[in-house]
Each structure stands twice: as structure tokens, then as C-alpha cells.
């Protein structure tokens, strides 16, 4: 089984790098991508410590 939490954390880090782009056409779209990943991390958060 993949470690989904870890993959999402890595994706968030990558998305944050993209969100630092200075391309005005892409800036909002990268921010949306980052927010999507951040939302998936957030909605999985409850009980994470218990499982560990």
C-alpha cells in the first residue's frame, strides 16, 4: 500500500514550488493545484496520530 499521507506531503511541497511561479497566466492555476492537495491532506487529518 502506498503511503498516501507521505505522497500528499511531497505533492504539496512540489505544488508550493510551482505556486512561486511568476507566470501570471499560471499563478492562479498553480494556487488551485496547491489548494487541492492541501485540502486532501486536511480531510485525511482526523485520526492520523491515532493510526500512527
Amino acid at each position, binding site marked *: 500500500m502506498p503511503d498516501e499521507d507521505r505522497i500528499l506531503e511531497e505533492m504539496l511541497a512540489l505544488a508550493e514550488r510551482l505556486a512561486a511561479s511568476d507566470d*501570471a*497566466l499560471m499563478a*492562479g*492555476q498553480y494556487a*488551485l493545484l496547491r489548494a487541492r492537495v492541501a485540502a486532501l491532506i486536511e480531510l485525511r487529518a482526523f485520526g492520523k496520530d491515532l493510526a500512527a
Partner: protein
Amino acid sequence: MAASVADPFAASPLLRRFASATRPELEAYQFRKVQALCARLYAKSDFYRARMDEGGLADGAVDSLDRFAKAFPTSAKADFLADQQAAPPFGTRLGVDRGDVVHISMTSGTSGQGQEIYGRSQRDVHMLGYLHALPWYMGGLRQGDTAINCVPAGGMTTGGWGPGEALRIMGATGFHVGGNTSTEAKIDLMLGLGGIHFIYASTNYLHTLTEALLARGITPREAFPAMHGIFIAAEGYPLEWAAKIEEHWGCRLQEGYGSTQLNGFGGSTGSAGVFRPDGQRGLMRLFEWEHLVEIVDPATGAPVQPGEQGEMVVTNLSVEGSPVVRFRTGDAARFVPWQECGGGAWNAIECGTIGRFDDMMKIRGNNVWPSMFDAAVFAHPEVGEYRGRVYTRDGKTEVEVKIAVADHHANLCEDDRAALVQSVRAAIKERSNMWVNVCEVPRAEFQGFAYKARRWADERQDGYRL
């Protein structure tokens, strides 16, 4: 002179890359996308597999763009409706598994023939937003802006969902005021927002909104000084009207050509506005890396010559769910090749004059479009709205045009009103080669609003009833 838009190319390396492609590079990219599209649809779509077999494209193999355009049979609305009827709801045109359809887009049904239905994948939905955001970005929309969307939101149409997705993915704040909000309530809301940067509206509604603001004594450029751009679609207009709009709003007017079949916009005036530097009609540059657009003689199917009007035949290069391939839109546009566009490799169509071949009226031997009358009538800023009627009397075809003076010109004297009627009549003669009957009626006769204006009624068949 309207304020110009911040250079969208300077602010986007990606857009600069698109703009720097040569014509051979663009066509090579299109060819690769067409090959992949045909191969995928041959495997997934009964509808398109039959089309390719009919055209002799064995196994969906295409060896050139020229061969694709000559061998792949065109489709039209009636073909899609028959396909849907036989295999509801999506027909057999899906390019993805049925389970990957997460959104649908339906055409508006204004043709009266029926509504096409398109399945969209998750990627298509992002592209739906992007294909609205791209022209709006070029037209001045930026992250953090406040935008007013006057097109009815939601429902099942492309125009209902695309704008919302576009504003969200651009990171702008969208106020979706179209639909049930009255014009007066929209104005009250706009005045209370503390700054508006962008408006999207149909041509018809921008006219209504501007007229209502002026009737309240509000000068838009003073009430909304932060406006970057106003973007219209859906209907033609005269340049005199566009100039007045830019003067009233103090910003450039931009236009896009879009449709459900294109999953958004297929071209726009970019940041250049609807006027060329010499004051002539501007150009909508086509997003040809997203769509293959042919402009053909509707009778022969042959490509039209530069400067000629033809029917747009479109092929999606990035749609997954229900792609259109060589779809006959019925939309009439004047073709301007890339070599005549003042730089870049993207072909163009003339803005402000898109019409429908199925709207064409044959009157006393003349081919006329409603857009011709729109141009003649709305070249007069005193006119708020009009309606046209073609009918038969004593075996002769008659044309009646009723005009209503705009509320903010309500103080026109009788002599000026009579002169206006004569001026409109002469302007129609100049553009259509026909003398028609013009009369003035009260503005209240034309209250109410539709997203796509239907100003004309053809009642000639009524005159033939026995």
C-alpha cells in the same frame, strides 16, 4: 482613447512561448494531436470509427493535416442528435469510459432542433475553465481581481459553468450576477463592491447594463475607475457602438468566439481590443494549439480565400470526453490568415461580425443577416433597442423595424426623433441594399432580456396561408 491592457505576454512566459511558435511548428503540433485524437477515437468511439471508415482512414491512421481535412467526414448538429437518440444520453462519441464522465455540457437549444449533450472528464472541466480564463487573462483579468459575470451561472450549459471555473482557476473573485438578478439590483451590487476590474457579458446585456447605468445618471468610467477590461461574446455589433462603450467605461472592449463545441473560447481579441490601429474592425486570433479551425465555403466545403466569409468547422485537440471532430458549426466568420495579422502564427477571424448561416434571411433577393441590421441600428447611440419583422402583404415582402429611444435619451424632441428614424432607415439601406419601414415605439415595449437576443421574426409563411 480607452486605457490599454497590461501586456499579457510580458507577464507570462508560457503565453510568450505560444506566441513565438512558427506556423510550421504550430501545424506540426496540430498534426501530432490530430493523430493521437483519431487513434484514440478509433478505439473508443463507434460514431467516429464509422466516420473514419467511411473516409478511408483505416485504423484511424492519418498521415497529414491535409489528408485529415479531405478524408475525415464532417459532422453537424443533426448527426449528434441522431447519435444521442440512438444511444442516450451521450451517443457513441465518448472518447473516455462512461465512468470517467464527471460533468456534462448541453447546448442551449435556441436553434429549436434539440440540445446536444457532451460528457466532460475531470481534465476537460479544468480545460473548460482555462479556455475561458485564457482570453480573459489576455483581456486584462488578473489574480486577485473582482469580476462581474453577467451570464447566467450554473445549469447545464458551457456558458453556465465555464466562467465560474475560469474566475476560480485565475484566482479572481467572481460575482455571478447573471440570471435572476435584475439589472437595477446588479448595479446596486456593483456600486457597493468597492472596485470592479473585469466584466463578462453578452453583447446584448452589456448594452442593457450600460443603458441602465446612464439612465441613472451614472458614468461607468467614473463609478468603476479600476476596470481593466470588458469582455463580450455571442453577438455582433457596430463599431460606433463599441467606441461609445469604450468611452463610457474608460477601458478596452474585448471579444471572444466560443461555443459548447469548443469547450470554451476558441479565439479572442487578446489585449488588442475590437479596433485595429487604423480604426477598422479588430481581429480575434484563434487558439489553434487547442482547436483546429477550418473556414470553408458551406456549399462546397472548400477553404475560403483570405478576406472571405465562410463556415467554421472545428476540431478539438485537447478534449477527452466528447470531442468534436470536423464539426460544422453553422457560424459564419470572415477569415484573416496569420500573415495578415501583424505578427504571430495564429490565424484570425474578424470580430464583431460573427453570424449564423441558419439566421440568414433571403429578402427581395438579398442575403441579409440580423447582424447587418444590428450594425445599422446601433450605430445610433440614441437607440436603446429594436425589433424587426419580415412579413407578406398583398403578395409583397415587407420589412418592419421598430426602434425605441434609450432611456438616457428620453428628452429627444419630436423633430430629433423623426430625424433619427430617417437616419436609421438610411443606414439600413446602406448596409443591406433595402429600403425598409422604420418607426419609433415606446422603450417599454421591449422590456425583458435574453442572454442571446432574438430581435427578428420571419412571418412570411403566415402570409401564404389560405
